[in-house]
């Protein structure tokens, strides 16, 4: 089993996360730790991070044994899952002791062959586990329990804790006793997640992960998008064999791609040997890729997976069209009315769209996602499937929405000390920028509210109490982009906007409200990882009406 899909030199901008996860993994040697769930947008690199972590644990230390497992959708009966889980665990565990890679791909290996391999390597604990499993194999639930207990028992027998790195964890909601699909077995895992000498680190589809009751007590570890610099470095690294390795990915496109390694990989592959010399060359490749190339096909596949039925798919596209045209947060009822659907029908479709990443929102309020690429792919899907428009036609529409003015933006930079009220300096600065441009006072006011919150968060969640906060304003003809960067990486991008209890010493609530205010007063809020720490990017479209988003107003009314 190869640990990594990427070469080490292409695994950029994740050094900090990897070090943090290594630390958490090695903590397993000191006893049990709370299970960890890696969260983040689809394609942001959670799986790759897990793979890189596994490789590091396998090759670069000897205190804990890694076990990398991907839940297979085709092996969800208790019996199949138990056998696969146990076989892979025993193989990887033996492989770790001898650093023997040949055992990392146990496909098709019988239990007898595995027992022989264990005996050959004098792994008596493995022999014991296999015998124990064999005795219970007839009863699926016993087999499942024995397989799940194997890492803990191996740790006890060998004295070496086990770190379980599980990908596609939400698939476990489909685990069943015997193929009928009637018995949900995921709760059985609960007892095994907190056993001493084991540490579970899981990932998968973010929405589905957070919907699982099982992960409610897990510690969250957000994997954030790459910053502009890391995104550009990754793109260059992926294209290093091509004739233009030194041409940088334009910052406007890096931002449009949301620092998402999947998009960067697809874009680099799509560009192929083509020379990319000017910014428009990059955008041309992007448009091709997002509207009918690999990125588009990936979006189509996601939609197909969510809606295999043609009628449901058409209704889902009608919902997406409603959200896309309104450009604001809508209630389920309004969406249902506009798309001429029953409320219940709309709700079920919206939930599937939410899981697939095509819509964002919470508490019955929905909007288009912050990810501009998903919005472009969606536009193409709507235009082609609902309206039978040509690629050229779709391209013209999407091209018109691209941040063409971003490269001509005027920028201002400001360094704030980590002192109380320093955010006021940024807010006053913004007021002056608003006069210079000029910007309508209402927009300046909305941006000031969002900026104050971003600066306070940067200061409060920074690693160093007195660390500086870096603020950058980019003012274009069509939008203003404000980035707030700090040394910390503890900023948690909550979707709900509900207050977070207990963050302040006094126990007051309110900080979650800060994120809600940011999201309501600007058009997009993104959270990125940078070499310096964490960056929050606020984007305000200057060509739209100045109303705040309706989400908060509706929920508060």
């Amino acid at each position, binding site marked *: 089993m190869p640990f990594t899909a990427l070469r080490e030199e292409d695994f950029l901008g994740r050094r900090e996360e990897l070090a943090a996860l290594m630390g958490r993994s090695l903590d397993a040697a000191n006893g049990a730790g709370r299970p960890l769930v890696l969260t983040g947008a689809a394609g942001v690199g959670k799986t790759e991070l897990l793979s890189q972590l596994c490789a590091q644990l396998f090759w670069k230390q000897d205190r804990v044994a890694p076990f990398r497992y991907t839940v297979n959708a085709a092996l969800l009966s208790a019996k199949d899952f138990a056998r696969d889980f146990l076989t892979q665990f025993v193989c990887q565990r033996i492989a770790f002791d001898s650093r023997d890679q040949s055992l990392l791909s146990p496909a098709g290996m019988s239990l007898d062959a595995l027992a022989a391999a264990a005996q050959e390597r004098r792994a008596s604990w493995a022999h014991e586990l296999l015998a124990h499993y064999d005795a219970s194999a007839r009863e699926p639930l016993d087999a499942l329990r024995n397989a799940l207990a194997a890492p803990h028992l191996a740790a006890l027998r060998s004295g070496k804790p086990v770190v379980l790195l599980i990908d596609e964890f939400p698939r476990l909601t489909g685990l069943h006793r015997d193929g009928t699909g009637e018995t949900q077995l995921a709760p059985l895992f609960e007892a095994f997640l907190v056993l001493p000498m084991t540490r579970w680190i899981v990932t998968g589809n973010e929405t589905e992960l957070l919907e699982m009751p099982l992960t409610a007590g897990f510690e969250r570890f957000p994997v954030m998008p790459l910053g502009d610099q890391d995104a550009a470095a990754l793109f260059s690294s992926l294209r290093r064999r091509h004739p233009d390795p030194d041409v940088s990915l334009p910052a406007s496109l890096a931002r449009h791609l949301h620092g998402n390694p999947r998009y960067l990989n697809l874009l680099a592959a799509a560009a192929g040997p083509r020379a990319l010399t000017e910014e428009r060359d990059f955008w041309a490749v992007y448009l091709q890729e997002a509207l009918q190339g690999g990125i588009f096909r990936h979006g189509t596949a996601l939609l197909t997976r969510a809606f295999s039925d043609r009628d449901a798919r058409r209704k889902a596209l009608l919902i997406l069209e409603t959200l896309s045209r309104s450009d604001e947060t809508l209630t389920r009822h309004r969406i249902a009315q506009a798309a001429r659907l029953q409320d219940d029908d709309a709700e079920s479709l919206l939930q599937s769209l939410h899981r697939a990443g095509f819509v964002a929102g919470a508490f019955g309020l929905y909007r288009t996602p912050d990810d501009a690429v998903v919005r472009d792919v969606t536009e193409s899907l709507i235009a082609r499937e609902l309206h039978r428009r040509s690629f050229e036609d779709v391209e013209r529409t999407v091209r018109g929405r691209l941040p063409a003015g971003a490269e001509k933006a005027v920028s201002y930079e400001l360094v704030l000390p980590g002192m109380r*009220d320093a955010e006021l300096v940024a807010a006053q600065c913004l007021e002056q920028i608003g006069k210079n441009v000029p910007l309508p006072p209402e927009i300046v006011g909305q941006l000031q509210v969002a900026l*104050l*919150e971003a600066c306070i968060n940067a200061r409060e969640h920074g690693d160093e109490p007195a660390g500086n906060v870096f603020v950058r304003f980019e003012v274009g003809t069509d939008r203003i982009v404000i980035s707030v960067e700090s040394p910390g990486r503890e900023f948690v991008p909550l979707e709900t906007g509900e207050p977070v209890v207990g963050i302040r010493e006094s126990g007051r609530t*309110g900080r979650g409200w800060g994120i809600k205010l940011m999201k309501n007063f600007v058009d997009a809020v993104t959270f990125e990882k940078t070499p310096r720490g964490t960056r929050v990017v606020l984007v305000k479209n200057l060509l739209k009406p100045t109303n705040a988003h309706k989400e908060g107003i509706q929920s508060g009314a």
Partner: protein
Amino acid sequence: MHNFSLTVKSVHDVVVITPRGYVNDLGAETLEHTSEEYFGQGRKKIVINFSDMQFINSIGVSILTGIVQKAREHDGLLCFSNVKKIHSDVFEMLGITRHVKVFKEEVDALCFLRG
């Protein structure tokens, strides 16, 4: 706290509090203590005039909700006045205006409270 101050005046039986500058956690706590003091003295009617408030942050707003709560506990009448559009949007967004009467001008709030 150079960026925050407040003034208090009495108009008959109504206490008018006017915060100035930046209402952050400390500013809002000062506002909270001041209003609590008056409620504690048995004064039941308070107007907070926001005409001179330049900025408020989310913690400031969360503390304002505490003041609204205190007013209820003391059977008091709390009104807001002279709220700028942006602050009105913030209050509305975070649900605070559901629990308090908001008037365009201080004089309107005084008229209401004096019956």
